[in-house]
């Protein structure tokens, strides 16, 4: 994200001018823009309300009433009434702005809370970004996905039936496997930008990933597919126990990948999540989840790391959002770590399904007992 102008008042209100760079930035914008914000951007509109009337480009400002995010297309659609005087568009007309990469926009908020600022900073911090493409596969099932700072996106799922081995005649199986590899090969340039990507990870059980890599290179050679041949060094073969998405994080354990992921948001999220699970498994009373439990721990100033998912802040219920912003601020003000998990990553998705809020404590604390005592009081 490129930040062009930042004009914040004492009370936290103010306007930012930004240019989103890629799909990922659109995702960040989705987390940043709330209902009630005012957004200005170039847009197109039919001026006359009749068939075949031309669409004209113009700059409009709206007060956001409805937000629609499309991860696949990488677009964010904001719907609301116009708030600026325009010679052709009367005030309070309904309009939909579509935010997309490279489109400059102004965002006004009554209050830029710490969460919104956090997301903005994350989006602007491109130094540590590391985009990785991964292909996880098992016979007959492959997922081609993109792991970026803020999201894991499945770009393509390939599922075919491969006949099992048959005594004496395996031609059917072998043919089907070759066809399957070829399908993956043809999908790669369509869904991954080999030039931009840091690495292409091929992972799966047994000898499948190695065979796929060999097949890709053979095909690229015979077809003189320069983009693939030039990216040869970026391909990495790793182990994963299946071709399902839940095996992706196994594949990302690969040493080389870990190094390039270490400083990324993804890397931090995974590390903290692993710690959380270990603590839970050891039953050491240091890992807790759920808003009430975490709130209690924050009150007791016992929190070491606070974990929140971005989806919590998208709640249209202002009070809800305020509640989590308060948690965020309280922990940060104590100088402790706060991590906002992307709900588009595996660990964020997991956190989301346990209410989206969790914490690691500095010392063991039985928060259940605490609540029992409270109940008695």
């Amino acid at each position, binding site marked *: 994200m490129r930040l062009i102008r930042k004009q914040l008042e004492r009370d936290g209100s103010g306007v930012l001018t930004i240019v989103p760079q890629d799909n990922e930035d659109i995702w960040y914008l989705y987390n940043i823009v709330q209902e009630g914000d005012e957004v200005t951007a170039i847009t197109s509109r039919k001026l006359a309300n009749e068939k075949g009337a031309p669409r004209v480009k113009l700059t409009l400002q709206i007060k956001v009433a409805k937000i629609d995010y499309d991860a696949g297309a990488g677009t964010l659609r904001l719907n609301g009434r116009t708030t600026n005087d325009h010679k052709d568009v009367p005030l309070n007309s309904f309009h939909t702005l579509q935010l997309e990469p490279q489109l400059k926009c102004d965002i006004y908020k009554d209050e830029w809370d710490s969460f919104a600022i956090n997301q903005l900073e994350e989006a602007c911090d491109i130094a540590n970004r590391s985009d990785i493409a991964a292909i996880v596969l*098992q016979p007959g099932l492959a997922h081609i996905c993109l792991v970026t700072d803020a999201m894991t996106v499945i770009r393509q799922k390939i599922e075919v*039936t491969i*006949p*099992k*081995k*048959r*005594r*004496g*005649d*395996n031609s*059917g*199986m*072998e043919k089907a496997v070759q066809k399957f590899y070829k399908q993956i090969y043809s999908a790669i340039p369509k869904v991954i930008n080999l030039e931009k990507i840091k690495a292409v990870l091929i992972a799966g*059980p*047994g*000898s499948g990933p190695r065979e796929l890599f060999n097949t890709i290179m053979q095909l690229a050679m015979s077809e003189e597919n320069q983009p693939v041949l030039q990216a040869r060094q970026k391909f990495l073969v790793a*182990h*994963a*126990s*299946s071709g*399902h*998405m*839940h*095996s992706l*994080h*196994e594949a990302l354990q690969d040493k080389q990948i870990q190094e390039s992921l270490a400083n990324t948001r993804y890397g931090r999220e995974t590390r903290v999540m692993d710690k959380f*699970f*270990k603590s*839970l*498994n050891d*039953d050491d009373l240091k890992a*807790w*989840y*759920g808003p009430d439990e975490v709130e209690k721990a924050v009150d007791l100033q016992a929190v070491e790391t606070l974990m929140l998912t971005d989806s919590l802040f998208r709640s249209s219920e202002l009070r809800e959002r305020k509640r989590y912003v308060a948690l965020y601020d309280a922990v940060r003000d104590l100088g402790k770590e706060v991590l906002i998990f992307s709900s588009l990553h595996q660990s964020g*998705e*997991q*956190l*989301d*399904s*346990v209410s989206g809020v969790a914490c690691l404590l500095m010392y063991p604390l039985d928060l*259940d007992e605490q609540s029992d005592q409270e109940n008695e009081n």
Partner: protein
Amino acid sequence: MRLDDDDLYDYDDEFDEDKAIEDVISALKPIIVSEIQAETELDKADWDIDLAISNLRKKLGKNKPSNVANPSDSKSNNIKAQKKLIPPQEDQGKGKLTPLQVLQKSRQEKNEKPKLSLADLASQRKRNIPSLSSIKKLKKQRTPINDSKIENIDSNSTINASKAEISFSNSWIPKISYDLSFSLDSFGLTLDNLASINTSASSLGGIISSSTQKSMTDTNYFEVPKQAQVSFGKPSPDDVVRAAQETAFTPNSKGKSEINVKQTPIIPKKTDQFNESKESLTVDKSGLLQKLQSLQIKPSCSFVVIGHVDAGKSTLMGRLLLETGSLSPKTVSKFERESAKAGKSSFWLAWALDATKEERERGVTVDISEAHFETDLASFTVLDAPGHKDYVPNMISGVSQADIALLVVDSDINAFESGFTLDGQTKEHAILARSLGMDHIIVAVNKMDTQGWNEERYLEIKSLLGDFLRKKVGFSKIEFVPTSGIQGTNVAHPISPDITEANWYSGPTLVETLENSVKSESETDNTFRFMVSNAYVEPFQSTLTVTGRCISGVAEAGDSVYCIGITQRLEIKQVANKEFVCAGEQAELILIVDEQVKNDNAIKPGSILSAANDLPLVKTFEAKIRLFDLNRPIIPGAKLGFHMGRVDKTVKVLKILELLDAKNAADSKSRKIRHLGRGAAARVELELDTAEILTPPAVCKVLSRFVLRLDGETIGGGVVC
């Protein structure tokens, strides 16, 4: 699918051996001759077809005397054959020897007379052999076997009957020990032992049994339209088979042409809800019934071979096939030649099962191989499972097709220990088999040749592994057999006295142990259901070939079946190599399908064919799960690998409903359950990524048990509730 030579052998000579075999078989009709018999005979006759035919006719003629020119000749043959089996003095003094001794004697005799050809053995098999399960059933009904009537049957049968009784007492009475709180027994509940579980407060089994009957109406099971009402008056096909098996042995029912359903015990229907919506098979099965009566059904049994990679599983199975005559010597010599050429000569026997290029090059089994062999007492299906960690999902599908598990362990000091440590597959496989409902395991302590048949080593492994399997994993029946697959020692033949180091062992061979383990099928439902393990599209034909296992019921050509995802019924054109397929058997079915079904790939590994369109597709369901060793606790939202037969999907834990461990259950009443850790047992709500056929165990056990995996580890087992 028998191991056919034409599948394996590239002919270099012009003589068409297949045709010769076919000619022999058709020339001898209506006498039934197996291909192996024909081939062996042809081999002996140096491929002189006429000679082979006349030899065979002489040998087998006694079955159909009318076809034989010289009946007296065949009679003397018959007597000779009997003498080979039973020494005369014992024939008279039956009371002096136990049936087991008689059996052992007769086996020794067999070995001392190597002249007895395979064909002889095969023809002996063809004789009246009552099915084990029919005997068991008779026992269950406590019908006393009337001695005087048994005398009417030829004496061979008597011996076979007593053999059967021995195995009956060995395998039928379940030894259940529920003394350990951390055992997997909670998932091993079969309907038989459900009742006998001691519902003590500390026993998890007790807790589960008390809630097993929970109705399923509160889950979203019934997405399936209700079907026509059942006509319960008609005998279901399975009753027919059962009845036929009984009449095949019960002497006084001879000549009874009609089966009276009322006398056939019908297993109490625990599955009323499902039966209500079930369309009964309206096809008249009387023709099949007659066929069944005229045939002697040999009990069949499938076993899955499991264990750490390189324990010698494939080799041992190759040996079994070779020594039971399912693998012709010619094929074997071909393997020997080719494997030597490939620089893998030590794998020659394994090649019988490792069929793909990858498997042979790497010397590692990747997917389940299936093969068949027969012994005097039973016919077997072997499922050779891959030992490598990456292929555990394939191994799981093998287990779900099998009745018993044969665990092969390498007796070598280092190898045994490495297979037995935590990441070794010996443990994981055993736990998997148990989680999927197996309660009986046979352990082959293999490669004893490398240990010089050291008895202490054998006993050490036996006590270590026995302890683990009984106490930690919860198997109720565990048997040990020392073997050497590569040398063929104690596999199909008792250890030869020449191997003096092994003199200490006097127990049964591997084959005998397997024979003693033949079980009757345990599904309570009689509807024909068939789990597809492989499906092959035949180009340019309107048929589809599927292989798999009949879970319950019976079917023959002409029957029609349903398959989820296909609106019309499919007709079974043919049951390959058989006239019908019944519960517990592996078979290959040829289905008539149209282009659409073929193109849609609607029938695939894991599909269920069913005579009734009553199987529910389920996406969200409740289950009881038991977790093993975990690095990562399970919290709601966790995504895990879900495996059941060939089904390989992702499941998400939606809710943790209650803890089932006695000690934690009380705790969980006052506390919120936040996660499931190591060893936890719980009732949970799960959601599959796409809907799948699942049923509670009362409807179909095979479709109720699953295992959960994460990061390449098996982390738990479960059963749908």
